[in-house]
């Protein structure tokens, strides 16, 4: 049987974090009351005149440079004409003929090998409004439109068809998201729609240069949906081809609930967008000095940071990868290491206890009350033996909740480690007396018996006993 491979190109839309929309002064805040962030320009009222947001252009350049693109010297906005209820003007303003970012790439690690996914272009355009259906789109007798989102600056990132499977798509998207988050241009939240991904999927005999008929997958609203959607679509197409049937070029919606892709009705979808230069928006030229300025303003990007953490801080690659996956986490790491100078300890804590707290709370590190200074102080308390590692975990929980500094917490809750033999002796004696059977077991050579007794002492001291001292004293008493 002929071996088949998939050819996948991705189109990613990323909403920018600008204060205002791309062509008007309306705010872009997420979750505002419907139709309260609209004006004649973004509603497309007669006589409106768009004026380009400078920040959107700067950030466009920033994102493009971070994704290794060239910045075109001349950029023009064009109109892409089609009708839809969420599109106020009957056209979308986009960079069709002269996009600003071209020929970029992102490298991903797949099974220990580096794969380069080329980026054909990154252009700037305006987002559409949002349709709210009563029930679902098919059954709803009418729909409501909220234009708050219309005109939010949107980056469209178009890859070359370099992706081969769902896993590569996921890795690429995660890397892309990390890079863009690093630049601060977008928060890239798929669940809030500030990052969206469509995939053009086709299949062909492995090794062939010919591209098969492609379908465009839409409505994949999470990383998981992207992988599931592609994982569904590839075998669907392969089965068709192997059965001698044709893949119909069409737009297919990912149905998350049913786990299938489904063809959209195509009758009224525009096939010819009649793009032409938008006479309302003057084009612009990019000064090389300005481009250089933007390049200089870029932060250290994930790949460089990863390399530094491995090389200079001596972190294991896995740690470096986890830490650098989020700029906020990596910044937190750097700031903590600057205070305690023990990279591996900091990394252990961030990936261990801090990670656990974050998971439980469902938050990103920048959304919590935790600060690098407090974490550094906590690690200092452990190092100095003021508290035990076990207690430190409880203190961490409290720091997370309240944002209080660890010393106050330790003091107020009386969590200081007991490393004073005179304090521990009576407790140990009590435990030995109360558990004759276990003591017997110990003498019979059962190691677990010692552990049980340690546990009992810890329980009585509420975890504050210095573990080393306790072990030593207990052993001495039992053997003595």
């Amino acid at each position: 049987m002929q071996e088949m491979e998939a050819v996948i190109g991705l189109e990613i839309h990323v909403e920018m974090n600008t204060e205002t929309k791309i062509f008007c002064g309306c705010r872009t805040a997420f979750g505002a009351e419907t139709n309260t962030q609209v004006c004649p320009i973004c509603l497309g009222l007669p006589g409106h005149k768009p004026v380009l947001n400078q920040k959107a252009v700067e950030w466009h350049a920033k994102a493009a440079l971070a994704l290794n693109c060239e910045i075109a010297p001349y950029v023009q906005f064009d109109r892409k004409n089609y009708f839809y209820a969420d599109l106020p003007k009957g056209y979308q303003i986009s960079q069709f003929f002269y996009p600003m970012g071209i020929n970029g790439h992102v490298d991903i690690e797949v099974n220990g090998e580096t794969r380069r996914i080329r980026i054909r272009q990154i252009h700037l355009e305006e987002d559409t409004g949002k349709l709210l259906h009563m029930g679902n789109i098919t059954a709803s007798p009418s729909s409501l439109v909220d234009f708050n989102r219309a005109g939010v600056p949107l980056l469209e990132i178009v890859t070359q068809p370099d992706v081969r499977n769902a896993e590569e798509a996921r890795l690429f998207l995660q890397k892309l998201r990390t890079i863009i988050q690093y630049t601060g241009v977008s928060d890239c939240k798929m669940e809030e729609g500030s990052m969206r991904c469509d995939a053009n999927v086709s299949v062909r005999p492995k090794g062939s240069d010919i591209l098969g008929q492609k379908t465009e997958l839409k409505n994949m609203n999470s990383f998981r949906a992207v992988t599931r959607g592609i994982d569904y679509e590839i075998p669907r197409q392969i089965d068709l081809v192997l059965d001698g049937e044709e893949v119909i070029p069409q737009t297919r919606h990912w149905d998350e609930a049913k786990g299938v892709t489904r063809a959209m009705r195509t009758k009224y979808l525009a096939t010819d967008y009649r793009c032409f230069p938008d006479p309302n928006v003057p084009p612009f030229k990019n000064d090389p000095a300005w481009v250089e300025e933007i390049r200089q303003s870029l932060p250290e990007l994930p790949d460089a940071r990863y390399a530094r953490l491995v090389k200079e801080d001596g972190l294991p690659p896995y740690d470096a990868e986890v830490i650098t996956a989020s700029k906020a986490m990596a910044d937190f790491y750097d700031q903590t290491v600057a205070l305690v100078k023990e990279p591996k300890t900091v990394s252990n804590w961030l990936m261990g206890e801090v990670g656990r707290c974050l998971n439980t709370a469902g938050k990103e590190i920048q959304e919590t009350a935790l600060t690098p200074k407090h974490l550094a102080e906590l690690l200092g308390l452990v190092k100095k033996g003021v508290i035990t590692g076990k207690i430190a975990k409880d203190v961490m929980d409290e720091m997370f909740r309240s944002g209080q500094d660890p010393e106050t917490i330790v003091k107020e809750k009386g969590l200081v480690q007991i490393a004073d033999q005179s304090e521990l002796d009576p407790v140990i004696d009590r435990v030995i007396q109360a558990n004759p059977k276990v003591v017997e077991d110990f003498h019979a050579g059962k190691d677990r018996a010692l552990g049980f007794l340690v546990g009992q002492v810890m329980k009585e001291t509420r975890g504050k006993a210095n573990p080393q001292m306790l072990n030593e004293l207990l052993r001495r008493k039992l053997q003595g």
Partner: protein
Amino acid sequence: MLNDARIGRLHELLESRQISAEELITAVLERISTLETTLNAFITITPEQALADAQTVDASIARGEAIGPLAGIPVALKDNICTEGVRTTCGSRMLEHYVPPFSAVAYERLRQAGAVLVGKSNMDEFATGTTNKNSFFGATANPWSPDHIPGGSSGASAASVAARQVCLSIGSDAGGSVRVPAAHCGVVGLKPTYGLIPTDGLAECAPSLEHLGPLTLDVTGCALALQVLTAGEDYTAYLGRDIRGLRIGIPQEYLEQADPQVRSLFDSAVQMLTGLGAEVEETSLPHTQSAPASYFTISAAEAFSNLSNFDGVRFGHRAEARHLHEMYRKTRTEGFGPDLRRRLIFGTLALSADHYEEYYLNAQKIRTLVCRDFDQAFSKFDLLLTPTVPTPPPAASLGQDELEMRLQGRYAMPANLAGIPALSLPIGFAGELPVGLQLLAPSLGEGTLLSAAYALEQLVGFYRHASKI
């Protein structure tokens, strides 16, 4: 009071308190109501607001405050210029009940200057037409002869100035829409340099070609209005200058289709200019004949896209329909008149993948050639002089041939393609009907344009004639 309704004169009367703004506005409103049955120059009249605004100006004069030259002056705005709180229809059923939530920048500037809006002028639907017959609100007549068209698309803007219903009106000009009616109605019409008057708030069809411009009885009024509309320099400073030595070119291509009566009036104007010491010389703009094709294609293509916001969702007419797609089609078919729909379809075709290069792109290339023609001509000349329109105003009963009618604007269109300033000045009569000539200057050459027009006006004195009705 309105026999001589030049802005400068009325300003003097207001300033010297010989008349009050309220008296002036009252007189104008009376004249409007008397003439409307014949002219139909207004879609909306705003008497209450106008009288209130006039009283504000009077109060200011009574306090002894200095007033600007447009304070208390009655103004009409073409009905594609958005006025907050005042219906703005574009002459279309589509916007029959549309009240914009914001005002055009040009209107804001006029208001700031104390000008008093008395109404919104009739127009060809969405400024597509050269006759002013193409309005959902009925045709406008030519005040010199009601059986003739006033020109278009700002036909009513020109007619209401000629008929002294207002002293100033603001029209829009994408392919001659200010200058053609100015010529047909015997008033001064200026299309300034592209972008000089902001078009924010102009519900336009073809943004790359569109301009706002004033229509007035005389050149002085034009200069006064231009200063306010551009928030710029004092253009009256250019008036009364000696034009000796001014180099004026006459492009021969602009005379080829000219009617003999137009030609002879044009020739006499050339003699006057020569008499004033200007150096008048023949020249050639070889791509003139191709300009209309470029204009027709670009304007239709842009209109197709620019009017796509009329979809019945956020404003304007909406037709009853079972689903969204049907709602779009029915809304737009009911809301737009046949001429406009035909142009939109032509524009849709010109931009479609199959025709893009041959039509839209070639039109843009012709545009380049037209611009180059002007660049070359202005390396030798300060101004160019042409008839504004090839013929006197046609009879209203004529004009069934659309292409022919649209070619009435053929002398006006090149200036829109190139964005250069152009002014139409009335120079005399063909029978009882006015004829205009057009002066063209390089970009931002409004000063030269006005100074030559003023010099000629001193000899012609057309504003002394009163329109028949």
